[in-house]
């Protein structure tokens, strides 16, 4: 615990740990996508794959987190639960509409459009949580470069 506290002692360190976590997340999602592609090619539809993966994910994350959930129930306001619940809803909406999109348009068109979601996060952050985080030119430039790169990877 003290190691974690030490790591997060300053804003700079906290942000660095956050960047590291985001990179690990990208690696996890990237590896998961390869397994998911194997499933939808050989076994099941994308919607079924997503639904059961989410179910297993709920068990894998939820069971070890029960202690944290119990503690947070006692101290977190209702709106915090609404926000994280809505985050689950919007994520499920994203997955469902992405599946509809690749059914209605070529993947090389749908994937880059969906891949532009970091720009949506930047815009929404600017309008709704600018009190919590600043949007700098580096954020916008980095977002544009990554979205451009993802578009090229999708075409490749």
């Amino acid at each position, binding site marked *: 615990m003290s190691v974690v506290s030490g790591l997060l002692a300053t804003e700079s360190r906290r942000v660095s740990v956050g960047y590291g976590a985001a990179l690990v997340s990208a690696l*996890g999602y990237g590896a998961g996508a390869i397994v998911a592609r194997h499933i939808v090619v050989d076994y099941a539809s994308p919607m079924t794959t997503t639904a059961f993966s989410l179910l297993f994910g709920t068990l894998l994350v939820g069971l070890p987190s029960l202690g944290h959930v119990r503690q947070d129930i006692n101290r977190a306001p209702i709106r915090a639960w609404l926000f994280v619940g809505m985050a689950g809803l919007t994520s499920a909406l994203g997955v469902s509409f992405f599946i509809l999109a690749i059914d209605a348009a070529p993947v090389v068109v749908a994937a880059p459009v969906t891949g532009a*979601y970091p720009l949506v996060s930047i815009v929404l952050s600017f309008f709704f949580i600018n*009190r*919590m985080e600043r949007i*700098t030119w580096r954020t916008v430039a980095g977002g544009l470069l990554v979205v451009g790169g993802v578009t090229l990877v999708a075409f490749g």
Partner: protein
Amino acid sequence: MEHSLGVGFALVAALGFGATAVLARLGMQHVRPTTGTAVSLIVGAVVTMAIAFSLHAAEIFALAAAAFGFMFLNAALSYPVGRLFNFIGVQLAGASRASIIVGAAPLFSAGLAVWLLDEKISAPVLAGTVLIIIGIGVVLSSRRTVATDTTPEAESDEAISRRDQERTP
């Protein structure tokens, strides 16, 4: 017509994924990333299971055991690693910056496909890789852009407002 409908769906998907990080950031002012991840997964699982059973019930009841094994593997990579670390990144680095880095996941997919599946790397993938790495480098070069303490124990909205008022000359 069908093509533009697909683009419309893709835009809604982008809106959904983009909003997820911002909503998670707001919720995780008061709950831990583990709690936020678990709650978001429960909601997502309920919604997608309802859709999947309404559209593909016959397919689900006929699924092979191996399919469930691969789905479990996909879940293990995408949620305890992908989403939990995404939410930790959102809480510590901010929704916009974490989303940009997590948005580079296709780069890792491409890299793993080349490494593990012997897929060939094409010129667009190579060019895209360079752009993504530069983009992430630009984002990572920024260290002091999160405006507040974001630990779950930390600040309520009232405390943030109070502090902002104190800072105002």
